[in-house]
């Protein structure tokens, strides 16, 4: 065995550059594109102001059902013909939904991009939305949610969200709705939501080799027949912290693991502490080397993985820790997780930890932003949050410049261990007594 004992240092750092961004107004809509020279694959993504935040309370799941209904035939062809036409180009219609936006995209070899965008626009702008089809899609979506909710996690997520934000608000209910809310939707709800949000032009995001792409033609196809201007998106929402910590127990009889979801409200995306908060979250729970994963997985062996982070949308945010731990160690895993949150709030981060966190976050920009899909996603961040073309370059600088004092201050200001809601989805009969004895807070059984 002949090994080199000395760890090599880094070579000369090479310049990081986000691809060149091109913005254009075409046919009443915005085109935002990134140039990826030589890339064979291209992505086009239509970004609409029709996220879950636009759904009325009691109508959760509208966007998810509409996404499926878009493929049930258009003004020009039935569902089967549509599926064959778009898949013959090598893509499926991929839709996505978050609190701030609705997204539909296609991914194809670059020569097929304009045909794919035409088909995408056909489904988004002129879907048939036949009531019988919509009812079937609705029932299928309700069934799909029931299937999903049979897994550990979705119920715990919903309970945490309702407790943090209040089920009387749309943002206190699940992003995709729940099986009951979806089952109660009517075809008219879908048609009205479509006419309100899906025929405004929106933004077409394109990532690919722009030397082989005609952005004006793509924009003309994407925005044909659209109308209506932007609608006020509302300001940040003030969400109060809980006045005490408590445990909500969601029963899952026979479960061999307990699913943990710990959380409290946190600032919205445009908050000035965004970068130091992100780094504090990284040190605490955002990387494999983070405090939570180190202690709960690597030292204790309680879990396959645990993570914690701050997440935010335009109007609100939350801090959350999530994991699945074996049933027998539910209470100690909770106690030690809360302990790490408290320690991070009280004593901040160390230079050693922060060095890893800031280099990792900054380095990830060059490592992860490679595929057209990843670049398109980065462009949507620019659009949704009104950020400049050089945002990613500036972000990299801000990450690398963050100090221990700034990140520790963000941890102190934005972590609230005493206001955490601790949702535990597991075998209640086995774990309840231990949870009570752990003395982390009142234990409440979820109805």
């Amino acid at each position, binding site marked *: 065995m002949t*090994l080199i004992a000395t760890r090599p240092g880094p070579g000369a750092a090479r310049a990081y550059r986000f691809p060149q961004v091109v913005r254009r107004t075409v046919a009443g809509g915005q085109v935002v594109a990134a140039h990826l020279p030589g890339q064979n694959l291209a992505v086009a993504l239509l970004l609409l102001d029709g996220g879950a935040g636009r759904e009325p309370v009691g109508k959760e799941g509208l966007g998810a059902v509409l996404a499926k209904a878009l493929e049930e035939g258009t003004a020009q062809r039935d569902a089967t013909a549509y599926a064959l036409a778009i898949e013959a180009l090598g893509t499926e219609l991929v839709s996505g939904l978050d609190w701030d936006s609705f997204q539909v995209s296609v991914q194809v070899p670059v020569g097929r991009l304009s045909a794919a965008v035409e088909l995408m626009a056909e489904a988004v702008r002129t879907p048939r939305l036949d009531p019988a089809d919509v009812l079937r899609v609705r029932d299928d979506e309700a*069934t799909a949610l*029931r299937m999903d909710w049979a897994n550990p996690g979705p119920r715990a997520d919903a309970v945490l969200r309702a407790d943090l934000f209040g089920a009387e608000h749309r943002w206190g209910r699940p992003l995709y709705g729940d099986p009951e809310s979806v089952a109660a939707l009517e075809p008219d709800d879908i048609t009205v939501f479509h006419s309100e949000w899906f025929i405004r032009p929106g933004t077409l995001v394109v990532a690919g080799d722009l030397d082989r792409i005609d952005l004006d033609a793509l924009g003309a196809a994407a925005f044909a027949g659209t109308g209506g201007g932007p609608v006020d998106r509302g300001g940040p929402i003030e969400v109060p912290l809980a006045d005490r910590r408590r445990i909500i127990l969601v029963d899952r009889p026979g479960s061999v693991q307990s699913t943990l979801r710990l959380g409290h409200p946190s600032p919205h995306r445009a908050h000035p502490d965004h970068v130091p908060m992100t780094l504090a979250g990284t040190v605490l729970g955002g990387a494999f080397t983070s405090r939570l994963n180190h202690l709960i997985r*690597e030292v204790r062996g309680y879990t396959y993985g645990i993570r914690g982070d701050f997440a935010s949308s335009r109007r609100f945010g939350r801090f959350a820790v999530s994991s699945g731990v*074996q049933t027998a160690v539910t209470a100690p895993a909770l106690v030690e997780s809360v302990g790490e949150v408290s320690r991070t709030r009280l004593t901040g981060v160390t230079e050693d930890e922060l060095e890893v966190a800031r280099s990792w976050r900054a380095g990830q920009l060059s490592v992860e932003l490679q595929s057209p899909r990843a670049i398109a996603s980065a462009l949507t961040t620019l659009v949704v949050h009104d950020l400049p073309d050089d945002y990613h370059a500036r972000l990299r600088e801000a990450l690398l410049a963050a100090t221990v004092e700034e990140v520790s201050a963000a941890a102190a200001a934005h972590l609230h261990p005493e206001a955490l809601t601790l949702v535990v989805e597991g075998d209640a009969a086995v774990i309840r007594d231990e949870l009570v004895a752990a003395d982390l807070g009142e234990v409440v059984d979820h109805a």
Partner: protein
Amino acid sequence: MPDSGFPWPIETTRLDNGLRVVVSEDRTAPAVAVNLWYDVGSRHEPAGQTGFAHLFEHLMFEGSVNVAKTEHMKLIQGAGGSLNATTNPDRTNYFETVPAEHLELALWLEADRMGGLVPALTQETLDNQRDVVKNERRQRYENVPYGDAWLRLLPLLYPPGHPYHHATIGSMADLNAADLATFQAFHSTYYAPNNAVLTVVGDTTAAEVFALADKYFGGLAPRPDIPAAPDGRTVPATGRPAVETVTADVPAPRVYLAHRTHPFGDPGYDVTTVLATVLGSGRGSRLYQRLADGERIAQPDLVGAYGVDLAHAPAPLIATATARPGVTAERLRDGLAEVVDELATVPVTAAELDRAKALLSTMWWRQMSTVDGRADTLGRYATQFGDPATAADRLPGWLAVTADQIAEQAAELFGADDRVILTYLPEETS
């Protein structure tokens, strides 16, 4: 459509100790992907040691002679990198993508755990990672509805003693019995330079990588007598279908229908890949059109078919469907079998074939769109077929498949006697 699936340069060398090194330069982004394929997987595990190859993969992150416990992750993430490793029946791969200036660090770390793991391996580390793996088994296989389907399909597809008979995650009993000496021997046996392929793709040159590989890996001793896994290329026919029905805490009936096909890499498996796409990929596929849309007996999000790309024995083709409310498992099973049977009798149309090939082309280029995707692909072809440049042949191979070949394969391989059927039934709730 290009006639090569890999239009980038490939340069290779072999160190004196047998380590194969593959480099593909691409200056597009200031990042490099480093990837090691070790030619050892769960197919090498004897009875009583299931799950060992995968547990070993975990141990490779827990320190080596010059790298302290947990330091590996910290150094890669601290360099801005992404990293992971996976184990399957065929092989174990380790990979990281880092900003280009940290290439040397990644190679140093990989060399240290290839050549210097055993002295650093402690009972405490083994016990801890055994717990982590048992938690992984609970989380991925035991605590989710249908989570054990793969664990049940493998023994139905492959007889006892076959290298694919058992699943990579292993059994709890075997994991509990694992002792330190066995793992030390496992490393000495399989983690040798002549049993690995090192691939680097991205912002570097072949000359730089070859020199660094020689510097860090060149002093490691080869192992002359690496034992081969049992030969599994011939699976004797039993003359009857393998049928299992499980009653479990699941929300709806689900059926899996599976057949053995050809090993990944054989021309016959290219046919399987295209066939599986025709059968079960996308809304235009036969399964979707017939079961989700036509008869409406299957849930649209949960119907599909795919091949599992295993190279050392006839690889499985799996088709699956989950019942819509009110549909019985029998009806679903009959419907699924009928669509699979028709692959032999109802010719695949030109439109069906074009659709499948278009979807596969996009899938291929998506894998090629990142340096890490390319590195893993080159490592695979170097390890399994002896030449990374053969990666370029896969896409043309798919595009050359004909409708006749699909019908012939279905007629030859998908008979009732060779069929595996696994059915899940919900427990009675009353």
